[in-house]
């Protein structure tokens, strides 16, 4: 078990730069648009990370019980579809944060479904280090596979969390044009990123 913990964690750390490059844009625009204080920002980051963990555990489950279907997850169709979905959610996020009633907050879990879904979809494309961890530890037991994947999630979350630190609670919810302006820039950036994700997803689907 110790070996699974260490291997998962170290591989996660090794892969964290790639995770940062993917998660940082999505997470930073969310935090910017939410106009949240520290608590709300932490909640968004937490839900986003939870989404990633759920995604990883899902992949681990598939790997343990239906290993022959894991290849499907790496096909361009699945990756394209997840990218399109991710983009559409971000565009909707943009719309809600700019024109919706109230801003995208995480006061209740219902409002937090967006970071959760984004976290889930961000980690939906299976990376090689994760597959290598799973291929080793799924053979022994499903629990060791879960532990290894969980530690992979911990290891790969460190750098993204450090990278989003400047965005945590930077903009407290108060009536200031400066805060409003940063929030609208974050919302617009979310929409633009969403368009790019949709476009790249469609490219993958069309081939």
């Amino acid at each position, binding site marked *: 078990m110790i070996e699974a913990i260490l291997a998962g964690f170290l591989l996660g750390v090794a892969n964290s730069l790639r995770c940062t490059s993917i998660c940082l844009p999505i997470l930073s*625009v969310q935090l910017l648009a939410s106009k949240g204080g520290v608590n709300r920002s932490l909640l968004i980051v937490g839900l986003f990370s939870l989404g990633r963990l759920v995604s990883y555990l899902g992949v681990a489950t598939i790997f343990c019980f239906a290993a022959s279907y894991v290849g499907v997850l790496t096909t361009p169709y699945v990756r394209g579809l997840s990218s399109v979905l991710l983009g559409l959610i971000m565009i909707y996020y943009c719309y809600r944060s700019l024109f919706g009633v109230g801003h995208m907050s995480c006061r209740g879990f219902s409002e937090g479904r967006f970071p959760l879904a984004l976290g889930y979809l961000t980690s939906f494309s299976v990376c090689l280090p994760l597959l290598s961890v799973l291929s080793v530890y799924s053979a022994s037991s499903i629990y060791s596979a879960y532990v290894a994947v969980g530690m992979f999630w911990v290891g790969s979350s460190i750098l993204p969390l450090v990278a989003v630190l400047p965005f945590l609670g930077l903009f407290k919810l108060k009536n200031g044009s400066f805060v409003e302006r940063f929030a609208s*820039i974050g919302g617009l950036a979310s929409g*633009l990123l969403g368009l790019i994700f949709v476009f790249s997803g469609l490219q993958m689907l069309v081939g």
Partner: protein
Amino acid sequence: MLRKRAAVAKPKFGVDHLVAATFVAAVAFCLYSSQHLLLGAVLAPICGIFTFLASTRSNAYRMRSAFVAALTIVTWMTFAAFLIQLGGYLELWLSRHMRISLVPSALTGSGYVSILCPFLIPASVGNQIYVSYPIYVKFYAEFPLSLRTFLLVFAFFMVFALLLGKGWCGWLCPFGGLGEVARQAKGFGRVYNTLKHRFMRLTTIRAYVTPAKITQLVFDLKYAILFVTILLSLIFAVQWLCVFCWAGVLSWVSPPLNLSIAIAIALIFFIGLPLISKRKWCHFICPLGAALSLLDKVAPFKIVVKKESCTDCGLCLTLCPTFAIQRAAEGGVRIIDTCDKCLVCVEKCPQHAIDLKMYGLQTEPKVHLVTLSVVSGLVLFYWFVVVVCELVLILI
């Protein structure tokens, strides 16, 4: 009444104007005579006289327009020369010469810079790059000659950007200048105006007719684009600013389809948009403009409104080509971050309520702005000017 012109002030000049003109002439001569003595000898008096006139006369905005038009024409002539001489071999040639690796390809497999770009070359800090101008042009040079030269260019770039701030867009940018040139060409302007009135009414965004929320979003869009480009450059390890640049699209040309897309984007974004009334591309979309708006916060040149003199006539709102003047909540007008210091408002205000200020100096600021802009243009557009002169010489 609104169009009432300000009384034309008599030109006033002093020693500082003469010193500035001499300084600019000396810079032009020293810089360009190293390449061609004749070129230095021709450019020096032209630049000196231009500086003197632009800083003493009351129509500096027209002189600025002419200056940016000249830079634009030089840049586009170089670009056109490349395309014409490469002709059908464009893609083949570009695949061999145009892409210059800035980083070891084993690391990222990317990192290219277009040889036409005077702005993004500094993005290759720490890596020596060599660029050769193509075969038909007699002039052949490697740029930069060494890492030291490159760092010198980078330092110039940063210093000019910090000093001019958003003034860069108004005085130097050849992309925004394209629209100005087209609007000033009478025949073309007429055709385009017809198009504009028929099809482009939706794009005529005026701060005082659109809802405040939408207006603010439009003004913030450029910052969002800048933010996204920075984030995406982290993901893909490429210079995403090139996506927004007509010269940068040439780096997309590996398959033919991409070339078509690149040309289409270039046509839409860099020919179509700049020709729309005023400078919407520059002030609502361009990420470089957004970055310069941020730098403008620390730039020494500021356009300020003297509230006690302002009669709220609204003339400046109509005249400003950059949507930079808005009605203030407390009355009068205020200057926002899209101001590119074109000086139209300063020179047209009938009450002289808008003024150019330079923090840190009590002297006439216009002469410093003009001098800095002309010297920046001479330094940063050096290769464009040299290539065009070579072409002219070959044609002669």
